[in-house]
């Protein structure tokens, strides 16, 4: 199974060295081929050992991997017409795929890892491979941001490793070298002789993961990088790389929950509230699509983390799935939306002719309204269930009033973001002058794919599956 999972990425890597003109079409096909073993994995009994105890497929990681592979296909489709919107050389295009292949290998390793160390290795590999993807855009800003990403990303990932070492040290007296395994840590969490050491390690690793996702205090870091790079890179960051980071948080937090739930909840609640507080005002001031979507991504990742630790695991997973499809869809549509200038928000949804154009603006409108959780968006349901879990948690807490006040404050911040998005949507649709914009079939196919995935996510059977994951 491991060979089947990694083979398409290896083929993609090998083909990326070919200068044959038809290689351009073989690369997206190899991206689609990644989905096939994942679908097979989806039907296998769980937990399924892929490589001993190191890589084990359970319901959670198979779900994350399936979503990531679908996002990968969408991004690949949009890449076919990237050169119609931006200046990209065939060499940069091939290199993008070369690092995309390495990125996939890292991603598969980190998502399926049942071992803290292997999780870290996969995440580091995926992070390093994305550095060069930023550089495929040959501008001084992209050069600067690629270095920025390399250095800040390295610090974030080092913090994760620091935390892992402390967590490993805390459990090694009882588990020996097996103290790196997530399943054993979870089952022996209450026996860990130095819980404080584990919590310290968890807090440091979590800060590293949160920094990597653009949480406080690095709120603008990711937004600047995504602004400087080509829009498919931003789609990959928001739809796939952040999945690999958040799955680590899911796994670590489940163990920390067994050790001291109150500490875990307090830490994550305060951190995410602080992040959303800052991000809400940054979104309010955002003047271009890329930064707007990037900051909105930070807000949603913070909500996912918050729902997860509040006990709303179903809500967190639904929100995660919806965000993984919606955000890349919006990032990919910026190529068309910004075709008349980076800061031309007014009228961005006007000037689309023909069936393709009509379908494009309808889909983008729906995605924009879905990202702010208007029904029937999956995010509407996830937020409903997520906030219900938080209120339930507050009712059981000793600090009920303080927690209810914090939840209300969070809702106020979300309404600031809601207001900003609605204003922008109105400006995009009803203001500005009508200028003709061209939509290409491949990017439209990507948006249709994401729309279909969102519809599937709303099916009762999908809800039932998500409920059965944790």
């Amino acid at each position, binding site marked *: 199974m491991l060979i089947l999972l990694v083979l398409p990425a290896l083929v993609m890597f090998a083909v990326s060295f070919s200068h044959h003109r038809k290689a351009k079409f073989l690369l997206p096909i190899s991206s689609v081929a990644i989905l096939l073993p994942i679908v097979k994995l989806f039907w296998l009994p769980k937990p399924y050992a892929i490589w001993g105890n190191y890589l084990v497929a359970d319901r959670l990681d198979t779900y994350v991997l399936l979503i990531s592979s679908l996002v990968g296909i969408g991004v690949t489709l949009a890449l076919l017409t990237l050169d119609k919107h931006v200046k990209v050389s065939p060499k940069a295009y091939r290199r993008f795929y070369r690092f995309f292949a390495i990125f996939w290998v890292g991603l598969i390793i980190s998502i399926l890892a049942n071992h803290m160390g292997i999780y870290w*290795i996969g995440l580091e590999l995926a992070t390093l491979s994305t550095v060069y993807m930023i550089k495929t855009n040959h501008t001084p800003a992209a050069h600067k941001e690629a270095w920025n990403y390399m250095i800040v990303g390295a*610090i974030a990932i080092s913090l994760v490793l620091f935390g892992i070492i402390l967590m490993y040290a805390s459990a090694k007296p009882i588990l020996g070298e097996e103290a*790196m395994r997530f399943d054993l840590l979870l089952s022996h969490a209450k026996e860990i002789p130095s819980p404080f050491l584990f919590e310290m390690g968890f807090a440091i690793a979590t800060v590293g993961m949160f920094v990597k996702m653009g949480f406080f205090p690095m709120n603008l870091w990711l937004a600047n990088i995504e602004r400087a790079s080509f829009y498919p890179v931003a789609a990959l960051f928001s739809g796939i790389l952040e999945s690999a980071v958040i799955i680590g948080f899911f796994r670590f937090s489940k163990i920390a929950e067994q050790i001291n739930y109150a500490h875990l909840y307090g830490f994550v609640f305060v951190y995410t509230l602080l992040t959303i507080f800052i991000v809400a005002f940054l979104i309010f001031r955002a003047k271009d699509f890329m930064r707007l979507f990037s900051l909105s991504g930070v807000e949603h990742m913070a909500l996912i983390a918050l729902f997860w630790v509040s006990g709303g695991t179903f809500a967190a997973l639904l929100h995660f799935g919806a965000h993984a499809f919606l955000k890349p869809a919006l990032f990919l549509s910026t190529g068309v939306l910004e075709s008349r200038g980076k800061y031309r928000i007014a009228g961005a949804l006007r000037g689309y002719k023909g069936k393709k154009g009509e379908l494009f603006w309808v889909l983008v409108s729906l995605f924009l309204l879905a990202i702010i959780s208007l029904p029937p968006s999956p995010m509407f349901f996830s937020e409903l269930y997520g906030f219900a879990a938080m209120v339930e948690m507050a009712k059981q807490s000793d600090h009920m009033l303080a927690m209810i006040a914090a939840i209300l404050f969070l809702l106020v911040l979300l309404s600031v973001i809601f207001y900003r998005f609605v204003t922008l949507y109105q400006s995009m649709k009803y203001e500005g002058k009508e200028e003709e914009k061209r939509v290409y079939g491949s990017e439209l196919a990507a948006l249709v794919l994401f729309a279909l995935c969102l519809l599937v996510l709303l099916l009762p059977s999908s809800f039932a599956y998500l409920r059965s994951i944790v």
Partner: protein
Amino acid sequence: MGVDFFIGLFLATLIVALFTSRLYRLIFWYSMNSLVLGILALMIGKALDDKAMLVTGIATLVIKAVGIPYMLKHFSEKFHFVRQIQPQISAHYAIILIPAILVFTFYLSEPITHMIEGNANYIAISISSLFLSLLLMMEHRHVAPKIIGFLSMENALFLLGITATGGMPMLVELGIFFDLLMAIVVMNLLFHKEEVSS
């Protein structure tokens, strides 16, 4: 006793690196830092009879003490790096700041050190090395010393791994080495493109 001496030397090489204003000297001190780390891994590995740690100790000596400094020097010549790298924090402030960081980290790591078997000071030194490596990254404007700061941070984490846990699993250590080499490849590409575009 020998381990104490080399741990002290590890910290000393990092502190000297913080005051260095020439790139080749900085690469040299990084190489010394890695050399001491490799010797420490070999000594601790031998004391614990841990073959995996012995292998990683040898890998540290070959890759970090010789290979990476050689490659950095090669990059420096190939891409014409700025070799005069004056730290942004002047020496008289650094003289106050570095001991303050050391005292702070010893105080910060005090609750942790009670929970770990073995010499508590080793953990404190590993954590202070991590902070000093971050300082090295922060005090320089140029990219090359920032890279050395990142590599020193890896060294500090490796030291934490061998002192706090008695060595991490072999697979993880080798994976970290592989990622480090991948980082060097990516850096090479980043430098290369910069040269082409300028």
